[in-house]
């Protein structure tokens, strides 16, 4: 057992971090705020060329042939770069939707909400950027043409870099994969979304720590006051615990003999969602009044974290899924 990044894993993460720094500097990311389109097609193709979408696709199918382990490292960096767009959906679609794997098309994904009188409306992210919208339910995956949909743009989105639309009706679409693929996507999507959350949680920590060192009040840096210092320390703890949980879940998907991958994925997302949200909130708090301004970017990570927490399993569903493992013989213990 060696649960540390090996050299090629570390190099992969560094490479993506460099790519994000070059292609997705914060000013460029922020230029899309509030608009209906946030995906920069050149940047998307650059991510495709770097393998961000094809990492887990078999080499025979034109992919890189690596595991979710490596993909989770890549997605952590994408989260840390605040890269907008349907990253996880396009990654999952690689091999199924032509062009997804090399970043020449942009693929979105929505889980079909249960029907009925009490059903919440269908809300879709990034619709104007999408070439294909996939719909996931227990029966499998279906494809829809985004242009064919009757969609209403929703004003004042929670995350200014995640535009959203509501759909009065979600057609059934063209079936493209069966229930097993759907189940695998739910699991892998949870891990990759959780990896984005770890990136956000880390980014928020870094911003808070930088500000705490630089900002002075009462004649000294605010990071010297325990109230601020301890907020930062708790942020660091949360990010690191979540990172370990997500990476362990990713490795478990790749090495299914070491544990129950679905439970690990759900648990990791539960922990990572909370880390990203709480750290986002704490980063705003450490920034005080400046954190409440639109200009200072810390609110973006908080808002993104809230959006990601609604994808691939909400808190209630994930916690139920993990709890269920406590009452089956395989689930107890570490």
């Amino acid at each position, binding site marked *: 057992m060696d649960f540390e990044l090996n050299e090629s894993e570390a190099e992969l993460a560094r490479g993506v971090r460099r790519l994000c720094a070059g292609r997705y500097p914060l000013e460029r990311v922020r230029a899309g705020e509030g608009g209906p389109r946030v995906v920069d097609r050149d940047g998307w193709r650059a991510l495709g060329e770097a393998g961000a979408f094809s990492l887990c696709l078999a080499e025979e199918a034109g992919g890189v042939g690596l595991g979710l382990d490596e993909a989770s490292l890549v997605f952590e960096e994408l989260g840390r770069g605040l890269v907008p767009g349907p990253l996880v959906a396009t990654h999952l679609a690689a091999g199924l939707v032509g062009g997804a794997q090399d970043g020449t098309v942009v693929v979105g994904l929505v889980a079909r909400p249960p029907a009925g009188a*009490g059903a919440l*409306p269908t809300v879709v992210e990034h619709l104007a950027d999408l070439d294909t919208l996939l719909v996931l339910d227990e029966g499998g995956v279906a494809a829809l043409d985004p242009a064919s949909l009757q969609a209403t743009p929703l004003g004042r*989105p*929670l995350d200014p870099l995640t535009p959203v639309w509501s759909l009065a009706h979600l057609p059934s679409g063209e079936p493209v994969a069966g229930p097993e693929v759907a189940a695998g996507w739910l699991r892998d999507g949870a891990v990759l979304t959780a990896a984005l959350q770890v990136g956000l949680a880390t980014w928020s920590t870094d911003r808070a720590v930088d500000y705490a060192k630089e900002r002075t009040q009462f004649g000294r840096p605010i990071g010297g006051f325990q109230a601020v210092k301890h907020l930062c320390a708790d942020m660091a703890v949360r990010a690191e615990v979540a990172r370990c949980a997500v990476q362990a879940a990713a490795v478990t998907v790749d090495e299914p003999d070491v544990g129950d991958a679905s439970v690990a994925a759900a648990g990791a997302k539960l922990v990572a969602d909370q880390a990203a949200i709480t750290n986002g909130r704490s980063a705003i708090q450490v920034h*005080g*009044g400046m954190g409440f*301004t639109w200009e200072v970017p810390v609110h973006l990570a908080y808002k993104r974290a809230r959006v990601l927490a609604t994808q691939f399993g909400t808190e209630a569903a994930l916690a139920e899924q993990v709890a269920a493992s406590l009452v089956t013989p395989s689930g107890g213990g570490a």
Partner: protein
Amino acid sequence: MDLRYSHAEEAFRADLRAWLEGALPGLPAKPSPNDWPGRRAYDTHWQRLLFEAGYAGVDWPVEGGGRGASAVEELIFKEELERAHAPYVGVNFVGLLHAGPTIIAEGTPEQRARFLPAILRGEEVWCQGFSEPGAGSDLASLRTRAVRDGDDYVVTGQKIWTSHAEVADYCELLVRTGPEDSRHKGISWLILPMDSPGVDIRPLTTIAGSTEFAELFLDEVRVPVTNRVGDENDGWRVTMVTLSFERGTAFVGDLLEAFELLTSTVDVARRTGAWDDPGVRRQAGHLKAGLDALWALTRRNVSQAARTGIPGPGGTLFKLAYSETRHELGEFSLGLLGRAGLAADDSGGPGGVGTLPARTVLEDFYRGVSLTIAAGTSQIQRNIVGERLLGLPKEPVAGRPR
């Protein structure tokens, strides 16, 4: 201890309620959130109506032109306005709650005559120039300088978090008139006409997307010495005097809004079926109990103020506890909205679950964030409780006198 209102108090409530029933239907349509000239017109019109009905400055002393009502009547006033969904104090906030009371307490007879009636009638709007980018929690470190030149001060510096600056006529401005390191002891309180040359206003957007606040850049702005309230270098005390007008009612409207949000969230939960989940119900029960407790604390604070005329430490206790409960309420509401909370526009509407309070929930959620920051972060509030109320030692301050 008595929670029943006296006959006089009940009569005040009944009169007010009757007047509101008559006055509210005639109001024009509300302007859109970031239309500040529109909002000024709307809010000042409402203030004029209050003035004509005898409800302007309900909590101001009679000698300042107000109604001189007790803290309990003030509580009833805020409660009834909130319950009737009457307009919020809006752009008149600083004039009615900060600048006006300060001028009543510390202004010259000329200043009172010149400024107070216009505030009460909704004719003039004020903004606040206290905070600075470098002086947030540590207000005494402010650096905007005022240099005496003949009968004027020449003011240069930068202010932040100035609400409604775009539509304000005057600004209550704290400036440094003493030496750079004079901390609390070298500050003066000035009345700045917003149309003075050298005043530059740049809107500041909050994380909620609101442009309610602005940054104020002051470049050699001349302010007559006669516009100073209180003595030179005595502005810190003047500012503190204003705080003593607080009667424990500062958050009444806010708290009643929180009750409403809880009610509408429970309504959503009943429509989606989430209410069948005992865990959800228990969370709602905890929130209701928490808000009820805060309502009890409000009545305690108001009663103390009514007896003594000065605010106790209850306001700080309230804000700390309320920030936490409001945060939990925000999490609860947002959680129940799920993906319908991804935008302020309502994704619901007819069919399915029906209309959803997404806008309210999101606004409330940002409100929860601002509560732990504005007017002293929760960290600073805990220092105040620890040091002033419990008598715990202050922190050593490196390098500077305090």
